[in-house]
């Protein structure tokens, strides 16, 4: 019965993808260069689902962090509250805040799109922090350019040059050569980036660092990636939301946003060249391709830009949920484990319609196994085996 239900959900999502459920804005468009975006790229049947729903969960959880995962957490929190009663209050204040507040203990659960640095880990004072991947997110170049629709093509160095302020106008020869069929207007490019410490920024700048020599030379090696960089130019918005809001207000603006935001707000977004040289449309399936072969044993990179899979979307990142492994309050620990287990199973089906990539089977199994390590006052919360 459950298998039938799962197949049905997958089928609906497939159909939605094929139907091109998201209307693209009017204007010149370039064809998106990938054909696999109809599916989700995930294999839910291989997921681990062994955790029972534990009794004694706290009725409320306090969470905060990444705005990349904001819409996803919002949908998850509402669905979960309806089905299981625990209300998770999530505030998308940026990955930096998610890390800082979780370590400080002012929130129980934090979300970040980039692994913690060693400096950050040190602030935990020896207590062990679990970093659990829960979804794949795709950071896409979004823009607001009158007369130009979705599908604008970028490659890594051109994108890096744009955001470093080296390419200043939309009709620059570099952009024109990548997009021969489009009539790009003679307008200034207005860069919009993040004002807060952002995992989205970390994923994006990691991709630029790996692929754009121009970006690295302008920012300086060692300073060209991270949650915060010294941006050479542009306006700054607070959160993915702030960037999206500014994009809508300024004609000629370009920024980087998670796919869910551009889909939900019908913003034009571009396609990016990956390691194999193809222009890849960002979608759950291409994000999943980038995550193929990754497991938790090694340190996860911030962006999966170096994937050599065909159809892999290079600016893919993984969102982690952070929590202390040794919880002080049993009710909170139970609530956390229940919510996370639900997120890693039922929750994954809710990701593709929003524009997030469900975890690969390998990542899901690795992560799910870590749930058994949560303890409350020394005793493990979940029954082992």
């Amino acid at each position, binding site marked *: 019965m459950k298998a039938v239900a799962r197949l049905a959900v997958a089928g609906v999502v497939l159909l939605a993808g094929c139907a091109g459920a998201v209307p693209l804005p009017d204007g010149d468009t370039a064809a998106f260069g990938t054909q696999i975006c109809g599916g989700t790229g995930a294999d839910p049947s291989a997921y681990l689902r062994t955790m029972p729903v534990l009794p004694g969960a706290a009725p409320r959880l306090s969470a*905060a962090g990444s705005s990349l995962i904001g819409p996803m957490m919002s949908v998850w929190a509402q669905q979960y509250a309806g089905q299981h009663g625990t209300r998770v209050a999530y505030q998308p*204040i*940026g990955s*930096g*805040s998610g*890390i*800082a*507040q979780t*370590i400080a203990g002012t929130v129980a659960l934090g979300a970040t799109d980039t692994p913690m*640095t060693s*400096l*950050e880990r040190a*602030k935990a004072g020896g207590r062990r922090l679990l970093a659990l991947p829960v979804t794949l997110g795709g950071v896409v170049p979004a823009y607001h350019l009158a007369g130009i629709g979705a599908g604008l093509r970028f490659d890594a160095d051109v994108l890096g040059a744009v955001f470093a302020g080296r390419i200043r106008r939309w009709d620059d020869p570099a952009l024109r050569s990548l997009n021969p069929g489009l009539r790009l207007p003679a307008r*200034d490019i*207005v860069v919009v980036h993040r*004002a*807060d*410490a952002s995992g989205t920024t970390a994923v994006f700048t990691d991709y630029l660092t790996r692929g754009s020599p121009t970006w690295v030379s302008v920012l300086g090696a060692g*300073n060209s990636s*991270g*949650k*915060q*960089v*010294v*941006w*050479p130019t*542009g*306006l*700054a*918005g*607070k959160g993915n939301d702030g960037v999206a*809001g*500014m994009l809508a*207000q*300024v004609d000629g*603006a370009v920024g980087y946003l998670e796919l869910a935001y551009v889909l939900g707000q019908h913003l034009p977004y571009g396609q990016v060249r990956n390691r194999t040289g193809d222009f890849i449309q960002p979608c759950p399936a291409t994000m999943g391709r980038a995550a193929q072969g990754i497991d938790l044993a090694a340190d996860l990179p911030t962006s999966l830009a170096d994937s050599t899979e065909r159809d892999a979307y290079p600016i893919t990142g993984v969102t982690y949920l952070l929590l202390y492994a040794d919880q002080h309050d049993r009710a909170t620990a139970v609530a956390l484990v229940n919510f996370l287990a639900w997120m890693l199973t039922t929750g994954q089906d809710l990701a593709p319609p929003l524009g997030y990539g469900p975890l690969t089977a390998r990542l899901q199994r690795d992560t799910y196994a870590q749930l058994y390590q949560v303890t409350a006052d020394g005793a493990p919360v979940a029954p082992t085996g």
Partner: protein
Amino acid sequence: MSLTLKDRTTRSMPEPAGSRQRHPADRLFQAAVHAAAWLPIAILGATVVFLLVQAWPALTHYGPFSSLGSIGWAPSRAITESTSPNPYGLLQFIYGSVLTALIAMAIAVPASIAVALYLTDVAPRVIRRPLAHLVDLLAAIPSVVYGFWAIFALAPTLRPLGEMLGRTLGAVPALGAVFAGPFYGYSYLTAGIVLAIMVLPIITAICREVFATTPVPRKEAALALGATRWEMLRMAVLPPARAGIIGACTLGLGRAVGETIAVTMVIGNNVTGINPSLLAPGATMPSVLANELTEATQPFHLESLFVVALWLLALALAVNVAGRLLVRRGHREPR
């Protein structure tokens, strides 16, 4: 028994006769009230002390005034061991705070004086109170609503004006830097204009009080000598009100410097440097605090944010203390 201006300062009740044997409840009441009176002092003291304690590590590590001397806020460049250069330069925040406040003052001060004069002496008596209520209503609108309106109504309206300024004045050799384009709506200028609208009712209200205390004989004397109404205002009302007006403006300045939400929404959040153009995006001290206080994990990031908070406190206190003193002087001495 009638209220003279002297009575507006503290005035205590006379002690009842035979007060040697005071009721114990009386003494208790006095003690409780006396204790409560320490609360404002405790709050101010706690604010200063806690901010100082939080900022102390950064002050000792980088030196107390090094952040004042550097431009550019770059938490990503902070390294625990290095003490120089200070990556947490806050000169651009002070510049942003002062510039937006000055733009606000340049617009609001003449406007407020004009409105206050109109409401106290020039407007037909029938409409004085309703107009005064309307102007006061400007102060009731919450700052988040002002910011919201500024993004969607003010900035798009300003854009053609800003672009024209950028093209015309921006091309002039020396002055041009101040008006250099491009103009995207998010700028010092937009923030300054929003602040002007927010600060105008405050200055107007205080000026109205000050103008209303002009002694009538002085006004009548001017009119008796044949002055027109404007001349009467200019000679009899404005000069003695000078201290009060300056006090009102200083208080308005204090409010402009401390305003957070409306400014953060429209200023563009550029923390990396000082752009001389009014049309460029920038940042203020409150805006960086609102944006970054919850997320500071870099070495000395949180502590440096509290250094910003300390300087904001110092600026706000200096302006407010000066303003209060001037307003009191303006009330006390109508010459």
